[in-house]
């Protein structure tokens, strides 16, 4: 980028920042970094340029780069939830592209700053991820690259199993201390899917249960209770758990957040004095961003439509509050209307025989399914039921079955990783074809046993 171009960009950003402020957007100080595509891909693959090294990130990086090289996709920007907020701009962007991106990024940053899901996230993750990466490098030197890699392989297999609500829950637990909290009150799924046999088995033990209540935060449970783990391994678990907790609110607000940023880049771009060429370029780019897909929901499109509808029905004032309190699943539940479903031609599809077919167009069923699919970031909920199962230090996990079965192949390949972390036999209870089934991995092989 030449000097005069940089100057132009700076002026554009200044103007866009002022417009955004006038609209009422409230964001952190911004740090725009202009960088080559490889850095944006590192970013996309790792979630953060300073994150620790692992081959799986290399794989993702490679795939993104190939897609870019073949012109299949292009990431124009990436933005990090931090204070100051980092936004990375691709050095080959045109000035118009950068204008749109800056407007979009300011929407994201406003959202990060105000949505309730982000209240507890660290705003200094760039630095703490860099520090963790450095510690993990030291572990590689001390304990061997392969040992560290294999441990991370296993930890990654379980990393989505954290509990972002832990702080709130612990407070609740304190209040309920007197009134004997039953597991059902803590685990929102326990009362929905009771499988008698297992309950009896665990309840027949007269000694206090461990954990006292089913624990959703498997990363934390293992970190605290797996006996054979060394300090460096516990540290890696803790690093990965913190990182997942940092990414978690972004998983839960994808539609809202992308819709919000898209809504605002449209508002802001309309205020700019674009010449004819720029107007055409902008229209093209915007159309690309909000293009719907037959086999997935484009969060930019769905989110934008919903925000525009909210503005029409409740006025802009209501938008500020909604962006503070909702997350995707409540956002869809409360604001996805029949009219919107029809306008966007939303449907549900599934595999019928060898074909993927549209199976549902009833708007309430579509809405309910979409809400359900956004629960827990889209990941199955597993809880640790017993950390001393059979009085043998074995770990008994239970899948809170919600109607969708687990992928058995993946399950069977994941259990050995959990075994690596826990160090003892692992059991997992789930439901297949309407029957309760327990998978067990004893360090050598898998067994399954229908109840």
């Amino acid at each position, binding site marked *: 980028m030449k000097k005069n171009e940089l100057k132009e960009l700076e002026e554009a950003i200044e103007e866009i920042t002022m417009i955004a402020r006038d609209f009422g957007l409230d964001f952190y100080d911004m740090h725009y970094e202009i960088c080559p595509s490889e850095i944006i891909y590192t970013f996309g693959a790792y979630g953060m340029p300073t994150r620790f090294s692992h081959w799986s990130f290399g794989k993702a990086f490679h795939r993104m780069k190939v897609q870019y090289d073949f012109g299949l996709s292009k990431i124009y920007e990436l933005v990090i939830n931090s204070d100051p907020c980092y936004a990375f701009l691709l050095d080959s962007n045109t000035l118009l592209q950068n204008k749109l991106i800056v407007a979009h990024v300011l929407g994201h940053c406003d959202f990060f700053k105000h949505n309730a899901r982000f209240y507890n996230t660290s705003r200094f993750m760039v630095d703490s991820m860099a520090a963790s990466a450095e510690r993990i490098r030291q572990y590689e030197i001390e304990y061997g690259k392969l040992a560290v890699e294999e441990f991370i392989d296993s930890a990654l297999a*379980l990393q989505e199993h954290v509990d972002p609500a832990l702080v709130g829950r612990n407070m609740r637990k304190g209040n309920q201390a007197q009134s004997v909290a039953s597991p059902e009150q803590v685990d929102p799924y326990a009362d929905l899917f009771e499988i008698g046999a297992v309950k009896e088995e665990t309840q027949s033990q007269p000694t206090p249960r461990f954990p006292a209540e089913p624990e959703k935060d498997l990363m934390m449970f293992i970190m605290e209770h797996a006996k054979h783990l060394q300090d460096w391994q516990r540290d890696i678990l803790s690093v990965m758990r913190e990182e997942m907790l940092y990414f978690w609110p972004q998983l839960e607000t994808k539609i809202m957040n992308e819709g919000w940023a898209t809504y605002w880049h449209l508002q802001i771009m309309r205020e700019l004095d674009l010449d004819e060429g720029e107007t055409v370029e902008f229209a093209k780019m915007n159309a690309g961003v909000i293009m719907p897909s037959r086999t997935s929901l484009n969060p930019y499109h769905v989110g934008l439509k919903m925000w525009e509808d909210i503005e029409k029905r409740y006025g802009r004032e209501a938008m500020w509050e909604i962006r503070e309190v909702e997350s995707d699943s409540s956002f869809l539940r409360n604001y996805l209307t029949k009219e919107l479903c029809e306008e966007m031609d939303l449907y549900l599809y599934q595999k019928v025989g060898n074909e993927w077919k549209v199976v549902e167009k009833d708007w309430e069923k579509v809405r309910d399914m979409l809400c359900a699919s956004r629960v827990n970031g889209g990941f*199955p909920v597993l809880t640790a039921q017993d950390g001393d199962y059979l009085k043998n230090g074995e770990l008994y996990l239970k899948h809170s079955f919600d109607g969708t079965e687990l992928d058995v192949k993946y399950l069977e390949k994941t259990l050995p990783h959990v075994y690596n972390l826990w160090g003892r036999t692992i059991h997992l209870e789930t439901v297949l074809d309407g029957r309760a089934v327990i998978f067990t991995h004893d360090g050598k092989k898998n067994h399954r046993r229908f109840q």
Partner: protein
Amino acid sequence: MVHQPNFIISKDDWSLHRKGYQDQLRHQEKVRDAIKKNLADLVTDESIIMQNGRQIIKVPIRSLDEYKFRYNYNKGQHGGQGDGSSSVGDVLGKDPSGAQQKGQGKGEGAGEQPGIDYYEAEVSLDEIETMLFKDLELPNLQRKTLDDIRTQDIRFNDIRKKGLSGNIDKRRTLMEAVRRNALAGQKHLKNIHPDDLRYKTWEEIEVPHSQAVVLAMMDTSGSMGQFEKYIARSFFFWMTRFLRTRYEHVDIQYIAHHTEAKVVTEHEFFTKGESGGTICSSAYRLALQLIAEKYPPNKFNIYPFHFSDGDNLSSDNEKCIRLVKELMEISNIFGYGEVNQYNRSSTLMSAFKNVTDPKFKNVLIKEKGEVYKALTTFFKAGDAIQAS
């Protein structure tokens, strides 16, 4: 009012930020390891055997996925968006993996997602060959001592000031220029004079070379089914590639037989089917005849390999043993591969049971993965056998 912009634009030097590439390398390393572990399966992979000059191959690898607890995508409902006219029953696509899956026989089993759970890596055929052939060699290769087993080679071993421009020695030319400039008090390289030019020149040398012939014999009788022929051809496919890439002077003669044997072209050998009964001795006899006519043992290393389902005419077995012994006397090794999926008792193998000559190598192949075993058994490096 002076507006203080509360933003910064910066442009760092990211050239040292190589993490993505480093982790990508590590991933590729793991892919390579996984391929190595899967070589046995890859050797009989149809997409490789059937590939015609395509150098990039997609190799399914079963260990590079990042496993986690996840929903069974095939059993769930997912959201999508139409163009305004969608209706229940619209087909969005077919599942290619389901259609391609052969012999699965499990139907809609719980969580079975054939074809989806593996990672496809792109590798070149060269890479696979390098890994596959690394530990293979023609065993017991001997230096035969006649004039025509010399081969010509060239060696660049002299530098001159005149020569062909294609042979300019750039390094020496630059050195000359630097030296001349330095002598003239010039610190830097300024120009190159015609006088600086240096050329490489070569001489022809003769390198002694071992000659070898491989006699590839295959049973094409009616009892050889699709599987049997496929296995035999897979073996010979890799054998041929191995010999072509690693040895310069190896002849391959292809012999197809049922009750009679004949020499066929490579193309015929790999494509043509036959039928009829089986008399294996016909192939051995033809091999001996070829050797007598074209490949005198004092000049050639001789490697007969025979692939059959073992289903031979009983009365022929004794003759087979006699001819194989005769062959072994003049060959470096004799390799017999029997494709016997169901472990039938085979007439030929039981006849060969009593052959104790260390030159006799046999492999029993029950499943696809064992073609690799045949390759490593027959072409085991460092497997020296006392020449008789």
